């Protein structure tokens, strides 16, 4: 009867002693070389294909031409951007009227209103006009002011019958039309 520890040691010794024998080392060598060469061939093929497709970029004059072309393209792009910005700037200063754009740039609000009036009343039969909110506000204020002044004038004329009669006569004489105040 062999003791347990001894059994274990014997099994281990048996395994240690029985070093695995590689009987086909030349076969392994051949296979390893074949695999490495296959990989190398694949790498060479890939690099060959890459050179064929993109090798021309290494030609000196092609490189220089490409650089010059890219510089020209950048300059054209920059110039176009400048032109576009300038155009946008000039457009933002213009009064836009439907159907046509006016190149006028009025200096004061009154001039603007006058321009709008001329444009809408005489030049453009469609009678539509595009104005800003501030211009509209100013127009309404001036209409209100005119209405107040007209009311005051009416009161003054009503209060003075002689003045009323005089104005009526004057208007009749001049225009041959009757105005009822």
């Amino acid at each position: 009867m062999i003791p347990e520890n001894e059994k274990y040691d014997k099994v281990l010794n048996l395994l240690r002693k029985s070093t695995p024998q590689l009987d086909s080392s030349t076969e392994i060598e051949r296979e390893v070389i074949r695999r490495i060469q296959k990989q190398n061939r694949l790498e060479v093929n890939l690099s060959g294909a890459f050179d064929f497709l993109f090798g021309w970029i290494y030609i000196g004059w092609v490189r220089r031409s490409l650089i010059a072309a890219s510089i020209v393209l950048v300059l054209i792009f920059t110039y176009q951007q400048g032109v576009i910005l300038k155009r946008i700037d000039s457009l933002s200063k213009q009064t836009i009227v439907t159907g046509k754009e006016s190149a006028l740039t009025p200096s004061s609000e009154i001039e603007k209103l006058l321009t709008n009036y001329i444009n809408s009343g005489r030049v453009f039969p469609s009678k539509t006009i595009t104005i800003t909110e501030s211009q509209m506000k100013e127009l309404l204020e001036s209409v209100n002011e005119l209405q107040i002044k007209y009311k005051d004038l009416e009161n003054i004329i009503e209060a003075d019958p002689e003045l009323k009669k005089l104005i009526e006569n004057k208007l009749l004489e001049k225009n041959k039309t009757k105005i009822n105040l």
Partner: protein
Amino acid sequence: MIDIQLIEECRGGNFNNFRKLVVLTSPLAYSVAFRMLGDEDRAKDVVQETMVTIWQKLKKIKTAEVYKTWIYRIVINKCYDEMRRRKRNPEFVTDDQTWGLISNKISEDPSEDLENKETAKIIRVLTEKLSAKQKAVFVLSDLEGMSNDEISEITGIAKTAVKANLYHARKSISEKVKIYI
């Protein structure tokens, strides 16, 4: 013994010398792979893959002195991969014939070596329940005769973990020996 000069020349890209290196290195790699996997054909596959990896990465090792540790590390990692693959298609290897064989061999003349197939069977039966790490530590320590420091360096496992894994591996194997022999 592998000549450091030969390794240095291979690091320089000398393919003919690499053939010599394959012949010299294959038995070392085969011994570990065979003992880890318990299968001749799979061990040969691992050796081939190891040698191809060596050729690809030989330039990356810092000095030729670390070559031996480095190839063991590659072999162990390749074996881990192979075991992971095998885990998906497990083979049940325990059989009474193998235990009978072990029993006979340890009772017979201890100077008689085992054949590869017999060794493979015994290794598979003894280590089938071990984890990959336990198997690696057991093979490197008890069969290849390496120190715990070397094993730690090769496997990347901490020294204390190496000891623990070795303890569990030995315990598992000695329990099997106790039961079946």
